[in-house]
């Protein structure tokens, strides 16, 4: 008998239809993944199951948990189900915990909410649960506050809260999207173990097919509020029936076709760069300890070369980027573009700065919403001593927009009228308008859905064919870096631990850290091999 049975679920929010005819079963101990792109309705399916939909939501159909139709329960009855029979883990561990309560109190709260036991007993049990999720007492006493923990550790606390009462069903909504690859691998292992140990049904929601492939027993693929295809993982991958599933898979494994790089001729030279931060004193009259966020980094980026930079959060990628762009001075070493320093004396060298442009991660917050696209795209002109005006300016803006696959008439629209992928194209147009010699892509495709990401990567490859584009591509996503760069550098704790031609580094990593990173990265199944075997 199935543990959770969703049948014919329809959902609309404020009269807008969101979910259509969703039917899904989860058996005890089974791991079922719901996957799809943003807006496909996967999170709404989860929220409907746990009964935390927005107030304007109207639901129809059945969601049965061990035979009880949850949709028929009153709100107070539902409160006894949530936390006790269904646990939920959310995407963002940095904000999912109450910052002013200790982790012990927050885990114990789940227990105290549902069982009438003493506080000390609840704390004892909270301790046991925290031990189970990998937060041992000596390093993580109950009195710790969330801000004293890393993202991965906080996610473990959230998981502890969700499983404290051994619920029958655990829902995990993008539980590892905000985490680094190595942390992600450990959290996924933990969830898998818990599901097996407790015989708990696990509904895992993720946009990442590779994550799904590695752990789910069954997969449901969602598009526009419908489940378009569902089946056991291997079977689904080896025989994808629905075109959307195939498109999603192809986009996830997307490889772009980069033109060969021209012969090496140094463009950006980074020599022994050190970026040091002073930390607060640990003792009252002690000296302030210093930390080298970037520690003796040297590399060269050649004209027309596509260089990748990978590493986990806190490794110094962003600090190095800011130093290269001349946004902050460095404490040692030199950074030059075509031989000219990016930092001239006490101020950034404008001559060099206008040769560099950057595309940031978040297409939603990196534009001023009050300006028209024309002004947003033309913004880098202020770096020029003699910026084009009037018709010449309009022509340049139109040219840049057309180059990234938009229309010249889009110049008169506002940024909120565009989708995430279109916005990232506008960001690329803005970066291209001055014909920079170097572009920095700082996690430029990380916030995009796989299909949109594939289009953006194709666009970058197309642009490389039209003009010699040199760029530094910074990302935590190894598969993206692998397809879009000629050479790659791996950064750890402020130092570059390995660099070399991309294929060579990926196929044959020398440094243990690179090996760990590659091993931790979730992989898509090799369909050809699977088909061959069956």
């Amino acid at each position, binding site marked *: 008998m199935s543990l959770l049975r969703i049948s014919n679920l329809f959902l609309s929010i404020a009269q807008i239809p969101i979910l259509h005819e969703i039917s899904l079963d989860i058996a005890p101990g089974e791991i079922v993944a719901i996957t799809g792109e943003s807006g496909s309705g996967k999170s709404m399916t989860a929220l409907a199951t746990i009964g935390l939909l927005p107030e304007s939501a109207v639901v129809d159909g059945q969601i049965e948990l061990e035979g009880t139709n949850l949709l028929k329960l009153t*709100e107070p009855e539902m409160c006894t189900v949530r936390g*006790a029979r269904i646990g939920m883990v959310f995407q963002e561990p940095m904000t999912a915990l*109450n910052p002013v*309560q200790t982790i012990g109190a927050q885990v114990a*709260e789940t227990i105290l909410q549902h069982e009438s036991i003493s506080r000390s007993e609840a704390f004892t049990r909270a301790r046991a649960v925290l031990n189970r999720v990998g937060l041992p007492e000596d390093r993580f006493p109950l009195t710790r*506050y969330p801000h004293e923990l890393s993202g991965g550790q906080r996610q473990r606390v*959230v998981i502890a809260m*969700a499983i404290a009462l051994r619920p029958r069903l655990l829902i995990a909504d993008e539980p590892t999207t905000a985490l680094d690859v190595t942390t992600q691998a450990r959290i996924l292992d933990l969830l898998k173990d818990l599901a097996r140990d407790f015989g708990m049904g696990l509904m895992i929601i993720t946009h990442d097919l590779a994550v799904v492939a590695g752990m789910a027993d069954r997969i449901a693929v969602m598009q526009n509020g419908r489940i378009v295809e569902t089946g056991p993982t291997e079977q689904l991958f080896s025989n994808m029936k629905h075109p959307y599933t195939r498109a999603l898979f192809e986009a996830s494994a997307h490889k772009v076709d980069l033109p060969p790089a021209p012969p090496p001729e140094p463009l950006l030279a980074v020599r022994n760069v050190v970026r040091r931060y002073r930390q607060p004193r640990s003792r009252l009259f002690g000296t302030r300890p210093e930390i080298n966020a970037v520690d003796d980094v040297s590399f060269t980026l050649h004209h027309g070369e596509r260089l990748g930079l990978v590493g986990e959060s806190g490794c110094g990628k962003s600090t190095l980027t800011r130093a290269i762009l001349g946004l902050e001075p460095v404490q040692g070493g030199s950074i030059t573009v075509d031989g000219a320093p990016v930092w001239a004396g006490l101020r950034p060298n404008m001559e060099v700065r206008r040769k560099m442009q950057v595309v940031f991660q978040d297409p939603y917050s990196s534009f001023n919403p009050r300006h028209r696209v024309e002004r947003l795209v033309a913004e880098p002109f202020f770096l020029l001593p003699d910026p084009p005006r009037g018709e010449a300016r309009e022509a340049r803006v139109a040219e840049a927009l057309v180059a990234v696959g938009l229309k010249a008439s889009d110049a008169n629209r506002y940024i909120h009228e565009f989708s995430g992928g279109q916005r990232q194209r506008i960001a690329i147009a803005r970066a291209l308008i001055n014909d920079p010699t170097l572009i920095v892509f700082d996690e430029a495709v990380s916030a995009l859905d796989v299909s949109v990401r594939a289009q953006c990567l194709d666009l970058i490859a197309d642009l490389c064919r039209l003009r010699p584009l040199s760029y530094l591509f910074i990302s935590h996503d190894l598969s993206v870096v692998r397809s879009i760069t000629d050479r790659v550098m791996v950064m750890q704790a402020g130092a570059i631990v390995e660099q070399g031609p991309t294929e060579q580094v990926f196929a044959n990593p020398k440094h243990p850290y690179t090996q760990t990173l590659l091993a931790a990265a979730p992989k898509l199944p090799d369909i050809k091999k699977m088909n061959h075997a069956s």
Partner: protein
Amino acid sequence: MIRYMIGRVTSLCLSLVVASLVIFTVVEIVPGDPAAYMLGVNARPDTIAALRTELGLDLPTVQRYFAWISGLVQGDFGISYTYRTPVAQMVADRIAVSLPLALLALAITVAIAFPAGIYAASHRGRAGDLGVMGATQLGIAVPNFWFAMILVLIFAIKLRWVSAGGFPGWNAGVLKGLTALILPAIALALPQAAILTRVMRSSLLDMLNEDFIRTARAKGLSKRQALWRHAVRNALIPVLTIIGLQFSFLLAGGIVIEQVFFLPGMGRLIFQAISSRDLIVVESVVMLLVASVIGVNFAVDLAYAAVDPRLRTRS
């Protein structure tokens, strides 16, 4: 925590030193010789000179600054130029009215704003919320002296529960003193309560949208439990800031209300001292007010740390 405390105390002391320097300098620059002013237009130069010596006005500036500061620290605020009585005594009499008035007004402010703000936030968009928001709009728009007049009209003239003004002094009994202060305190508190209600409501609404509220709901907490256990304490940080500002305002800013109710408070003392060029009173009272504002901010800083554990570990 100790580092945080040391940081706050250092900042407290530095603020006091800077404030005292600024106040002293400004009073120095103001034209007019207090001695000449006190003795009137017909005074003989040697009489003025004698008085200047008596008041210590002929000493070098630096020496006078330190004399003033060491006096302040020991509770000696000097002698009023106009009344010829110790400033400390005058100030003490006025504080005995102004401080209880401010505290009472603040208590009323909080007593209205917390429930109203929490109620409005938890009933967002519904009739109750709209009612509270409308009332706060009115409370902010209408000046407090108008409230004062209406209160006097109802409670003193129509119902005769309290007197329309004046202060019998604490010697007449604590209850009599408090009764005299209750109407002015309400009049002072209403606009402040309206402001604080809005701050409380919007701060709570921000918190209710936070991820950790959803986490709490997923644990099985009802909306009300999630609000009380997780949102309220987090929402207090901006509210505490406003309370600190309001207390400072209530302590000295009640001059209009003091006039309406004939209360011998700080506001009136400053007003009289300025109009009669009683600079030593102005200097001391202003310094005292500045010190109390800085002191209140210090208390607010400590309250932050009590509410938010993140501040205790950060430098």
